[in-house]
Every structure is written in C-alpha cells, then in structure tokens.
C-alpha cells in the first residue's frame, strides 16, 4: 500500500503519480490522507488500481475515471465521477450535486444521499444511492441505470432517453416525458445483480421502475406551433 499525504505532496504530483500507473503496475493499492476537501483528487485515472481517500473531497473527485476503484471515506463535492468511463467509485458519505454527470460506464455507489442533478445526462454509467437523491436527477439521461433506495426529488428523469431509474421510496415528481413502468422479472433480476455489485442489501422487488415515455424523441407536427 502506497500512502500519499495530499497536504504535503500536493494535488498535481499526487494525480501525476496515480495517472502514471499502467495496466501492469504492481502498486495497485493507494491511500490518500488529508484530502481536506480539495478539488479534482484522483482524476483521469486509467489503470486497475484501488485508491482510498481518507476524508471528504471537493469538486470533481475521480472525474473521467477508467478502470480504477476510488473509495471516498467521507463526503464528496460537486461533480464527483463526472464523465466516468469505467471502474468504480464508492462514497461512504453523501455526494453533492451532479454526481456522475455524463458518465459513460462504470459504477458509482453512494452510501449516504446524493444531492440535485444526480446522473445528469448519464450515458451508460450505473449509479446506486443507498439514501435519497435531489431534484432534476438524470435530466436528459441517455442510458445506464440510476438506483435509489430512498426517495427522489422533483423532476426525476426530465427529458430522458433510454436511461432507467429504479426508486424504492417516493418520487416527489416526475420530469417531462418520464413515466412509471412495469417492473418485470428481467428488471428484478438485473436490479438484484446491480445491488449485489454495489454491496447494498435491498430487495429488488420493492423498487419501481421509471423511464422515458418516448414522446419527446422526435419532432411531432402537433408541436410546430411551439417553435
């Protein structure tokens, strides 16, 4: 295990070291101490390494992640895991707004709550939140899955495409073109697998599925007057 004291080593050096790890590295386990809410910690990683951050992080932690596993032993600031491509991010505390925005793959797990705009414009990432999420989550979500064990705020899935949402609690309101959908056996099986992968103990049959009504996909002549 390599330990980096961020307050001594500095952000650029820390990220440079982590980004320099290749697929064949034998230094696969890293620990970052004294994060002190700094921005952009462990961004742009592209190797199958595990990085554990001992404390809370600021903006854009683990952004653009590929292959790596990043554990945050604290809460995470805005834009955590932005544009994640693959790998895994686990947040032990809460996550601030626009978690996993535009994420294209991989998995993000939040043990606490996630704030507004969780998974905005998601494009393939899977996000599992043990608590609740804020308003405008998964706005324009294109693909991937957002799983919420608690409640969802206003305008869930507004203008969504093919992203899927599974919510166990209440949804304050659904966004434009987002509707409740039937929870079929295939969805329960899929959700069980995702919850297992996220290490969260919840009964998939208690969730409701939401997704696109597909009415906003294409130009509709009846809407011509609106342009």
């Amino acid at each position, binding site marked *: 295990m390599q330990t980096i004291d961020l307050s001594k080593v500095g952000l650029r050096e820390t990220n440079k070291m982590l980004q320099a790890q290749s697929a064949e590295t034998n230094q696969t386990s890293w620990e970052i101490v004294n994060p002190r809410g700094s921005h952009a910690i462990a961004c742009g990683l592209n190797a199958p390494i595990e990085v554990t951050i001992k404390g*809370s992080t600021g903006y854009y932690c683990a952004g653009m992640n590929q292959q790596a596993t990043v554990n945050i032993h604290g809460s995470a600031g805005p834009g955590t895991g932005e544009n994640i491509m693959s790998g895994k991010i686990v947040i032990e505390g809460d996550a601030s707004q626009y978690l996993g925005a535009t994420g294209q793959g991989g998995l993000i797990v939040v043990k606490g709550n996630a*704030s507004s705009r969780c998974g905005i414009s998601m494009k393939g990432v899977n996000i599992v939140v043990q608590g609740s999420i804020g308003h405008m989550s998964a706005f324009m979500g294109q693909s991937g899955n957002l799983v919420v064990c608690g409640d969802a705020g206003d305008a869930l899935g507004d203008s969504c495409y093919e992203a899927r949402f599974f919510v166990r609690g209440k949804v304050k309101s659904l966004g434009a073109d987002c509707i409740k959908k039937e929870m079929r056996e295939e969805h329960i099986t899929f959700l069980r697998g995702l919850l297992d992968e996220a290490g969260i103990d919840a009964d998939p049959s208690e969730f409701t599925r939401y997704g696109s009504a597909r009415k906003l996909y294409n130009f509709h002549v009846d809407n011509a007057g609106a342009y």
Partner: protein
Amino acid sequence: MCGIVGLFLKDRSLEPRLGEMLTAMLITMTDRGPDSAGIAIYGGETPGRSKMTVQSDDPDKAFSDLGAKLQDAAGGPVNVTVKSTHAVLDIPAGSTAKVRAALNEMGIRVMSFGDSLEIYKEVGLPKDVAARFELAKMSGTHGIGHTRMATESAVTTMGAHPFNTGPDQCLVHNGSLSNHNSLRRKLRREGIHIETENDTEVGAAYLTWKMQNGATLGEALESSLQDLDGFFTFVVGTKDGFGVVRDPIACKPAVMAETDQYVAFGSEYRALVDLPGIETARVWEPEPATVYFWSHNDTPTATEKAA
C-alpha cells in the same frame, strides 16, 4: 462564482476566536472570489449605545475629529475607532438617523448600522483585506464573510459584500440576479435608496423594503424566492444569529456543519476543514427553497417553502 463563509457560535468560550476562525475560512475561499472581500461581525452591544461602521476613500481627512464633528447631530458623545478605511462609531442609542444625515453631508459612506453589527469590506485579495482590518483579532458571537468574483457590476468597495439591509442585518450572496434592473427601478420608486448597479444590493434593498412593510426577515426571505429571478445562495446575518436560503434550482454550492460548539456555513467543505471537531460534525447541504435560521434566542428552524 463567489465564496461565502459563516460561523455562529454556541460555545461562548470560542467567542474570542471568532475573527481568527472566520478569517481562516474566508482566506480558503480566495479562489472563489479574489476581487474583493468583506466580513460582518457581531461583536456584542453596549446598553444605551448604537454602532455605525463608516467608510471613506480618504480616511485620514474624513475621520480626523469625526467624533467631535458628529457630537451635535448625535446629541451626545461619539467615540470613533478607526480601522484602515473604515471607522466604527459608537453613538448614543436613537441617534442613528441624525448621524447618518450628518455623515451624508460629509460624503462619508455608511457600511452598517445597528447595536452589534460591524461590516468591513474592501477591494483586494481576502488575505489582504483581512490583514488591513485585523479581522483575525476580532471577537464576537457570530459573523459572515464573503469573497467576491464580480460578474454583474464593477469591482468597488460598495460592490463588495456584505450589504447592510436594516439595523443589525446584512446579506451576502453567491450567484447572480437577472431581474435586478427592473427590481431596482421598482424599489427606487418605492423610495428605497440603492447606491450601485450591483445585483446583490438590489437583493438587499428588496429585503429592506419587505421588512419596512411589516415582513419579518424570514417572511422577506420566503417572498424573495418568488420575486427574485436568478441564482442565489443567500446568507443573512441578524443580531441573534444567521439564516440561509438557496433558490429552488440550488446550483450555487452550500455546505453546513453543526456541532455542540457552532453552526458553520461554507460554499465548500474546504472552508470548514480547520474548525474544531469537524471530523465528527453533522455535515449537510441546505435544501433548495428552504429558509434556515439559527438564533441565540430560540431553537433552530427550517421553514419549507412550497416551491
């Protein structure tokens, strides 16, 4: 951008360290707002006396003999404590209006008035502004600070935050208001004095106007959610405590921390990391369109707004 910090002490033994803690928080927020900085501090009150903080670009001239010059208007002794470009006037209670009129004639700007509140703000890096006013040496019960990255109006002392909204009341803002021009015209027609082209000053004037018409600060903040268009995280200071409200979109960041010793506000968690006991504090983000208050007089309240 802009950065906001706030600290409300529950543990009175920390009061001598309020300025020091708040200054460290303020300086951490420099890269959110390097243009100007300001702080509002509630340093306690003296029975029978009121306070005004005033500012002049030519302090040597403006503040010399100021106490004596104001004595007639104040109807009693006026003590002047000069701190760089600012001075705190200790005046007889009830003389604020007359002293203000006299100051106007002398071309001296009033930054704040009340019994306990002092406001210090200037153009420059937060660390320089803090050093100029020796903010770290100040003690008090609670205070709020602001680092400004200007978007809507010029970088000037009067465009810096906090803004004084009423006796012992002040406002800081992160965000931008988009209907401030029309609202400024409306408020001016209502007879509200607005000095600059700054959007936040309009927000502050709006709260003043609402309260002059009978609203409580809480009610004024509630109605701001209807009448102000734009992005805002507001932190307001009152004699007894502070309040927080975010617009319904809530894209401007806000983090709160609470322990047995204090309630703290920061635009980012970074601003809070050196506070005592932060590792075990309750840390959370205030909900959108919800007015929060902490007061030395009663229990904390959060009023949900049907947004």
